[in-house]
């Protein structure tokens, strides 16, 4: 085992290979507060990459209802349970959040899946603590959750009034997931054939189909369960981050880096994807006007999913503001309280950066804000809101302007008291 730096955990960590970092890293931010589980992302991915025979159970992109759902079923509960068994009572965070880019959430004092694996597994069986989901667990992307099924015994027909929907009389939220293209991928670490590699130019993790011999060690090792086995080709497959689009080699992209299909299809506009610069030590290089850098390291509103697993995932989430905090802290680490506070009381810059989500399918590499006058001040749901006529400009890879968003003159809003106001 080598020792590598994990900035999300604020400490060094054991990993089967030496650290090697790409020059840029594929990363994304999902704003959960906006997700209504329309599953457009899921279907965009399915219809692009996994519509073939043998891929029926495969959903590289999925949206699951938390805390009930999961694809595969109970994936996070199961791996958390295994970690807890390996290190009872020890899976906790300590330390103090650092100001810099290393350890912004404090220090994780527990064991990662690599460390727990080294301690609890025999050397031959695996290098990573994991498990192989059963057929049943792969069987549905969000089983029994929010699927407007028909009445019991009536096939191929949705319930017309929706009253057969399950009801949760408590908090819940929708968690959209794709492969996190981790900086320390568990799938890569576990593959006995070295068939999985991380691209030096963009950090996208790919699985070489010609090298795969179907050992399924990646399926077992990935804590997010985003590597999947295909029975008819007898090889494993995973999200490829729509790399032709990200490269700009997809015909539709006309040479300009483009966001993935799942991002582009998002009608709730919850998603932004980009490529961040990586420093020599594996942290994100200072890039003050990169929108993802801003959301993760400056505004600190976007947090990694289950950072304690130790793979340094590159998917970040703006946590849902209405959900139980202990649950969120477990899922996104101790940065949750600050993230929600900053999101609920957004700064002028954060409001401007949030305007960049889904205004274009091109990848944004930099933004700039031209400040304008204050145009509104008022209260909303008990909070003060100030709005400025700021213009936010998005730039692409070559520094050319992709688009600009401007808040224009106030428009008159008719009172809802009018009968014809609907």
């Amino acid at each position: 085992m080598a020792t590598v730096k994990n900035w999300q955990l604020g400490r060094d960590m054991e990993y089967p290979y030496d650290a090697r970092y790409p020059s840029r890293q594929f990363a994304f931010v999902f704003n959960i507060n906006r997700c209504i589980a329309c599953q457009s992302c899921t279907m965009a991915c399915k219809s692009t990459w996994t519509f073939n025979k043998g891929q029926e159970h495969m959903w590289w992109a999925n949206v699951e209802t938390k805390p009930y759902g999961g694809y595969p079923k109970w994936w996070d509960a199961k791996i958390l349970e295994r970690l807890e068994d390996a290190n009872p009572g020890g899976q906790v965070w300590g330390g103090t959040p650092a100001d810099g880019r290393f350890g912004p959430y404090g220090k994780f004092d527990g064991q990662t899946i690599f460390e727990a694996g080294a301690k609890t597994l025999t050397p031959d069986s695996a290098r990573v603590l994991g498990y192989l989901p059963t057929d049943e667990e792969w069987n549905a992307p969000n089983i029994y959750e929010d699927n407007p099924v028909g009445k019991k015994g009536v096939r191929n027909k949705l319930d017309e009034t929706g009253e057969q929907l399950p009801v949760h009389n408590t908090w819940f939220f929708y968690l959209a997931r794709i492969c996190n293209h981790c900086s320390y991928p568990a799938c890569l670490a576990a593959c006995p054939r070295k068939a999985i590699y991380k691209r030096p130019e963009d950090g996208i993790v790919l699985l070489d189909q010609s090298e795969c011999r179907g050992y399924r060690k990646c399926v077992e090792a990935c804590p997010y369960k985003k590597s999947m086995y295909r029975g008819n080709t007898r090889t494993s497959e995973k999200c490829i981050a729509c790399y032709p689009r990200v490269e700009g080699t997809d015909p539709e992209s006309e040479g300009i880096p483009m966001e993935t299909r799942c991002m582009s299809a998002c009608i709730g506009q919850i998603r932004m994807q980009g490529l961040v610069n990586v420093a020599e030590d594996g942290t994100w290089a200072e890039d003050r006007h990169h929108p993802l850098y801003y959301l993760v390291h400056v505004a600190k509103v976007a947090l990694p999913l289950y950072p304690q697993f130790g793979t340094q995932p590159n998917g970040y989430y703006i946590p849902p503001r209405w959900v139980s905090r202990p649950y969120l802290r477990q899922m996104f680490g101790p940065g949750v309280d600050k993230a929600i506070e900053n999101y609920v009381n957004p700064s002028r810059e954060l409001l401007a950066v949030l305007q960049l989500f889904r205004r274009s399918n091109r990848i944004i590499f930099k933004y700039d804000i031209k400040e304008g006058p204050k145009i509104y001040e008022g209260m909303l749901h008990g909070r003060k809101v100030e709005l400025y006529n700021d213009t936010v400009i998005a730039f692409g890879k070559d520094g050319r302007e992709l688009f600009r968003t401007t808040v224009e003159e106030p428009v008159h809003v008719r009172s809802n008291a009018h009968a014809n106001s609907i």
Partner: protein
Amino acid sequence: MIALAIAPDLMEEALLLAEPGAERDRAAAFRRERNAIYDLRDPEARDAQFHAFNLRWFARFGLQTRVEEIVNERAGFTTRLCGARIVRAITRAEEGADLVDPASRAQKTAGPLLVLRLRPQSLLDRGALQALLRHELMHVADMLDPAFGYERALPASDGGPSADNLLRDRYRVVWDATIDGRLDRAGYGSPAVRDARAREFGAAFAMLGEAGRTSFDAWWNEDRPTHAAMAAFAAGPVHAAASRCPVCRFPVASLDDRVRAIEPPVAAAIREENPSWRSEQGLCSQCLDLYEARYGTASDRVCHY
């Protein structure tokens, strides 16, 4: 001996699951041989090779013999079948045995087809597989036995779908008790199975009270049960009890005993929402669980993973 046709996907998945547990040399040989097939470019030739490989190794890992031995313990009825097939089950609840009519007219005269549904992982644990298959095959033996008089449908009750479900569940509990009783006497039982069946029987026929124990013993020791007798027994107490939970008004098999030790704040909360309710009336387990979770001393527990 009956020929067993095992579904290719079941066979392959069982092999992949069996490999990590195999001895090192054998596992290495398995992988060497399997990996070489990936080099074949022609997809059809490749598939054919994988199939041949799976058949070979299914036998080599002893899985073929494992299943055949158990099925052939039932030599008595296998002659009445036109064949036997094992297919892949996705969930534990799907596992089991069934008889289906063969598709072709010519085969119909040769008797029904035995279909066993198993999850791949069930093939790996010899003990559990024996227990599962012996139990399921006893169901099949009963279904094929004219003296048992099996009929697919139980008589409809007049209590609606939930009463039908109760009836079916009780019928299953009785049948399972007679099967495991007979297996026990044949030397295949264990005290744990008997206890589990007794508990299940006690819960399904809670309205019988202490007499339930005697009834269970009678069914457990019954060597020649018939469909008609079991169906009648299962239906009998439904009408006798016909009880409903006084709180939610759903028909239930029995009310919950724990109501005797109900916590005062929980009882008070139930009375507040159901003013006519008295604790002597009891309530069903679901309602009790709900009110205890909301108003009991454990209700402030936060549940996350």
